C-alpha cells in the first residue's frame, strides 16, 4: 500500500507539531538522551563538583561537552524533561484511547508526570541554606551556602546597625571581572562603584612574596588576587574593589571587599570596611544572602561523641526548642537521619564546628535547612506509579486467564 505523503502546508503545521510531540519515537529519543546526560553529569561531578555539574548538565537547556575528546552539543536535562513532560501529557494522557484496559498504564503515566512535575517544582521553588548555632543561641535566620551580596550599613560608633542596603546576589553575580558597575541611590549620600568582581579571590599584602605575581590595584597595602573557582561552589569567597563617591563632590573612598571578612564562626561578628561620609559612619561588606523561617530555633544542647582516642565524630545530635508566637515552645531532637520537618522546612543535622576543635571545646551545631514544596512528591509519584502498574498487571492477568479459558472452551467444543 502506498504511503500517504505528508502535507507540509502551514495550515497543517499544528497537526504535524502535535504528531511530533505525541510520538513514541520522540519519547524513545528523549529517554536515550536522558541516559547519556545522566551518565555525563555523573562523570562530570568528578571534574566540576556537585553544584556545577547539576547546573551544567541538569539545570540547563543545552550544554557542550567532550565524549572521547570529540566536542558534542547536547540538550540539557531541563529541556529534555520539559519535552518529555509535554510528550507524556499529550501522548499518554490526552491522545491515548481511554479504555478500562488501559487504566493502569494511564495511572502509572500520571505518576511519572508527577515525578517530573515534582522535579520542576524543586528546581524552581526550593531553597537550601544552613543555620549554625552554639548552645544557647536562638535565631530564625538561614544563610545561603553559595550566594553573596553586598551590604552597605549605617553604623553607630560602637558598630551597631538597625538596617542595611543590599545589592542582591542575583545582580552581584552578574558582574564580570572587567566590568565597572555604578550603583546610584537616593537613600545614601554616595554612589557605590563596584570593580573587578571575582567569584573567588583572596587579598594578599603587597609585601608578601606571592604579590609580585598579582597584577591589579593596590589599596591599603593589599592586592586582590583572583583565584580559580572551586569545584565546590560553597568554597568560593568572592572579592571586589569598591569606591564610594560622595554626592557632595568630596574625595571618594576606595576599598577591597572580601567575603572572608564575614563571620567564620556563629559567635563572630562580621568585619565591614568602615568609612565616614558627612558625620555618619558606614560599613560595607560582602555577606551571605540570608532569609528567615517563620519560627525561631534555640539550640539547648549539642551532643557530640568522638571515637575513643581520636578526634573523629562518632555521633552528634542537637536538642533544640522551636519557638513560635502562636504555639507553645516545643522541645525536639534533630539527629543524623531524623530531621525536623515544620512549616514546609526541613532541618537536617548537617555538621559541626569549629574545625580542629578538641574534646572539651565548645562546639556549634550546623543544620541544613531545606524548603521544598515538592519534598514528598517523589514518594507519592512512585506510589501512584506502583498502583498503576499493579492495576495493569491484574488487568493483563485477568485478560490472559479469560483468553486461556475461552481457548480451552473452544478446544473442548471443537
Amino acid at each position: 500500500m502506498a504511503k500517504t505523503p505528508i502535507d507540509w502546508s502551514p495550515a497543517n503545521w499544528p497537526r504535524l507539531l502535535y504528531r511530533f510531540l505525541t510520538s513514541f519515537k520522540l519519547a524513545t529519543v528523549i529517554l536515550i538522551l536522558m541516559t547519556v546526560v545522566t551518565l555525563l553529569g555523573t562523570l562530570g561531578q568528578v571534574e566540576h563538583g556537585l553544584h556545577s555539574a547539576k547546573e551544567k548538565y541538569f539545570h540547563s537547556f543545552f550544554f557542550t561537552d567532550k565524549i572521547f575528546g570529540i566536542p558534542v552539543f547536547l540538550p540539557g536535562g531541563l529541556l529534555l524533561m520539559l519535552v518529555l513532560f509535554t510528550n507524556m501529557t499529550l501522548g499518554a494522557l490526552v491522545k491515548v484511547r481511554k479504555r478500562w484496559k488501559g487504566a493502569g498504564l494511564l495511572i502509572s503515566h500520571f505518576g511519572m508526570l508527577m515525578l517530573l512535575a515534582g522535579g520542576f517544582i524543586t528546581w524552581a521553588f526550593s531553597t537550601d541554606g544552613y543555620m549554625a548555632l552554639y548552645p544557647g543561641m536562638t535565631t530564625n535566620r538561614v544563610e545561603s551556602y553559595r550566594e553573596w551580596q553586598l551590604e552597605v550599613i549605617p553604623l553607630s560608633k560602637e558598630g551597631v546597625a538597625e538596617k542595611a542596603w543590599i545589592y542582591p546576589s542575583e545582580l552581584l553575580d552578574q558582574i564580570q571581572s572587567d566590568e565597572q558597575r555604578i550603583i546610584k541611590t537616593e537613600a545614601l549620600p554616595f554612589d557605590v562603584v563596584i570593580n573587578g568582581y571575582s567569584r573567588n579571590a583572596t587579598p594578599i599584602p603587597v609585601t608578601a612574596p606571592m604579590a609580585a605575581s598579582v597584577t591589579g590595584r593596590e589599596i591599603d597595602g593589599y592586592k586582590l588576587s583572583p583565584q580559580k573557582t572551586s569545584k565546590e561552589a560553597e568554597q568560593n569567597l568572592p572579592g571586589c574593589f569598591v569606591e564610594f563617591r560622595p554626592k557632595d563632590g568630596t574625595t571618594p573612598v576606595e576599598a577591597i571587599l572580601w567575603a572572608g571578612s564575614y563571620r567564620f564562626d556563629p559567635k563572630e561578628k562580621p568585619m565591614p570596611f568602615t568609612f565616614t561620609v558627612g558625620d555618619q559612619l558606614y560599613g560595607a561588606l560582602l555577606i551571605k544572602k540570608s532569609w528567615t523561617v517563620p519560627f525561631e530555633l534555640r539550640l539547648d544542647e549539642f551532643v557530640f561523641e568522638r571515637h575513643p582516642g581520636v578526634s573523629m565524630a562518632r555521633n552528634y545530635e542537637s536538642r533544640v526548642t522551636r519557638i513560635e508566637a502562636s504555639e507553645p515552645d516545643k522541645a525536639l531532637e534533630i539527629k543524623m537521619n531524623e530531621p525536623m520537618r515544620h512549616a514546609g522546612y526541613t532541618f537536617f543535622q548537617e555538621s559541626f564546628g569549629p574545625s580542629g576543635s578538641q574534646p572539651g571545646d565548645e562546639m556549634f551545631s550546623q543544620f541544613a535547612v531545606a524548603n521544598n514544596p515538592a519534598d514528598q512528591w517523589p514518594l507519592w509519584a512512585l506510589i501512584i506509579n506502583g498502583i498503576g502498574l499493579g492495576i495493569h498487571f491484574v488487568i493483563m492477568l485477568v485478560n490472559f486467564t479469560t483468553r486461556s479459558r475461552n481457548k480451552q472452551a473452544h478446544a473442548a467444543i471443537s
Partner: protein
Amino acid sequence: MMLRHFIRYVAATTFFLSVSGCGDRESTAGLVERELSSSEREFKLAESSTERFRYQTRHAAGGDSSVPGSGGGGGPKLVFTTPEGWTDKGASMMRDINFSFGEKGEGECYVARLPGAGGGLLANVNRWCSQMGAEALTEEQVAALPVKPLFGQPARFVTVDGTYSPGMGTTDTFANYRLMGLILASDAGAVFVKMTGPKELVTKNEAAFDQFTQSIDVNTN
C-alpha cells in the same frame, strides 16, 4: 529558587542589554533596604585591612575549613609543573605541595607558606642546618648565599649535606643526605621550598628542582 534566579537573570540581562554600549554600567535600582534582625546588628570595627582580611590568622596553606557552609579562604592557590619522575602527593596540613621521587620514594620535596616572616631568613636557614647536623651560618654567610628565582623574586638557595633529622615527631636519622632549598622571606609572608634525600639522588634532581621552582605561580585562572 532557581526559577527566581532564571527570572532575575533574564531581567538582569535585559537591563544590561538596554545599557550596553556604555563603558560603565549604571544601576539606579540596585540597593534594597532591609531591617536587620537582632542576631545581625552587631559588627566588629576592624582596625586595619590585615585584621579585616584575617591575614595573620588565615592558614597560609589551605584555607580555614571552619567557615560554616564554606571552605573558607586561605592563601592564593598555586600552579606548577611536576618534574618527570616526581610523584605529586597533594597538599597536607602545613604544606601546599608535596612530592616524592627516587626508586623507593626516598627523596621528597615540598612547598610551605607562612603568613608572617616565619622567623626570618637567618633562623630558617639555621633550622635547616641544624636538621642536617651542620654548623649554623652567620648573618654574613646567609647574605652571601646564592639566589634563585621564586615567584619572579630572588630567593636564597641553601644546600646542606649531613645526617638528616626530620624531627616532626620522628627520631629517625638519615646519613649521607643532602638538603636543598629556597627561602623567600618578607615581613608579610615567607615561602619555603625544601628538597631532601640521599645526596646522590638530590644532586641528580637539582635540574628538576630548578624546573619546578621556576614553574610555581599563583593560580589566577
